[in-house]
């Protein structure tokens, strides 16, 4: 089980060929209080780097991109009902979707935790 990270601050954790994806704790901190989440419907096909979800804070709306290509097999209704839970558990319970990955080798292009931490350290 590996977790990988994108430059757009999504994380993806793979078990078998199912990838659970969400936004990083750094992303939720930058967004501030989350007040709205829009998730794709189950069955939607997403492409790596393409639009997947929308997350809005009091201040602004942000796109969440698919970190890996595949078909949406689950969407986390709990974060739609309680958007503020994204601020509390971005890298845990507040996952966004599960994707049946079409090409697991896409993960090789993403960052490890150490690389991601080094990346966000360069952003401020």
């Amino acid at each position: 089980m590996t977790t990988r990270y994108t430059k757009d601050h999504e994380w993806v954790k793979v078990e078998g060929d199912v990838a659970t994806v969400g936004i990083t704790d750094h992303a939720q901190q930058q967004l501030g209080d989350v007040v709205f989440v829009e998730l794709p419907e189950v069955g939607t096909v997403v492409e790596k780097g393409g639009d997947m979800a929308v997350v809005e804070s009091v201040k602004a709306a942000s796109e969440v991109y698919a970190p890996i290509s595949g078909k949406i097999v689950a969407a986390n209704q709990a974060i739609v009902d309680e958007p503020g839970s994204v601020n509390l558990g971005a890298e845990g319970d507040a996952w966004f979707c599960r994707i049946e990955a079409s090409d697991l080798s896409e993960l090789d292009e993403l960052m490890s935790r150490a690389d991601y931490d080094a990346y966000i350290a360069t952003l401020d």
Partner: protein
Amino acid sequence: MPDSIKTTPLNGLHRELGARIVPFAGWDMPVQYPTGILTEHLHTRSAAGLFDVSHMGQLLITGPDPARAIERLVPADIVGLGEGKARYTVLTAEDGGILDDLIITRDAPDRLYVVVNAGGTEADLAHLKAGLEPEHQVTHLADRALLALQGPQAVACVARIVPEVERLGFMESLVTTVQGVEVRISRLGYTGEDGVELSVPADHAVKFARTLLAMEEVKPIGLGARDSLRLEAGLCLYGHDIDTTTSPVEANLAWTIGKRRREEGGFPGAERILREIAEKPARRLVGLRPEGKAPAREGAEITTTDGSPIGKVTSGGFGPSVGGPIAMGYVVAAQAAPDTAVHILVRGKPLPATVVKLPFTPHRYARRGA
């Protein structure tokens, strides 16, 4: 950080308090503190929030009867404004558009104190100097800071250091001395709550801010909550809800134009503005409540329920006290009545919304006799 970014006297304090700093109208300003915009917003509505608004332009106009002279630039009745009273108005252009919005306080027969938007300060200074007489002096009080304390407990807190505040009603102002320092205190603000703005010398600003922040009721509030508070209060933000393309009548600001000024005219854009008062404007700024949870943001198109374009959102977001999305925007007059059902296009999808009366949250100003 580029050299051209300006900082207020409280910049160091904001950083010490853990603020996230962003550029705003050429200034380095706190957008939020570590507790976040929602908490800051709700704290201001329930207790007292301290805002650094030192980026705004504080001007002093002196000379013979400046109230009469400035009436050539604004549609408000300033001549009829009592000493120590403040009034909200707009600088209008010849075509009836709005150059800036401002608050004018009549200090004395020969002196006005004026607060303008940060982004408009330079242009407003030039506009005032050109529009007044040579014997009027327009001074930018760049050596003064401006702090706003807003919320139901704001006045009780300020009274501990400036007891005279209790004498002020809404839109009243006085100048006094606190520990040897000249302080101007005005009972007004930009949140819909009771509260004050304190103009203090720049080199005493940190001391005043720390004194207020040491009070249990007071927390620092950033520009993020300032924006959500003013939007819930239905107050216009220059450059968004009002600008050179909107008239005061379209913006629901006809209430700022006094009876005598309507009869006499004599301000820039009077022809259009008085015609719109008489005949009603073709479009109007309205409040909008989207259904569901998705906020409609500035720029989103507003349509009838069958898809014909009728206007655009000028401010929109989440209202923490309302507990849902709120917006303001211009719509054609025929669709501007409260309870009109409309659609707002959000990411290409029509979102049902309802035209509502402003404000979204009731104003709680300290009106005399209220």
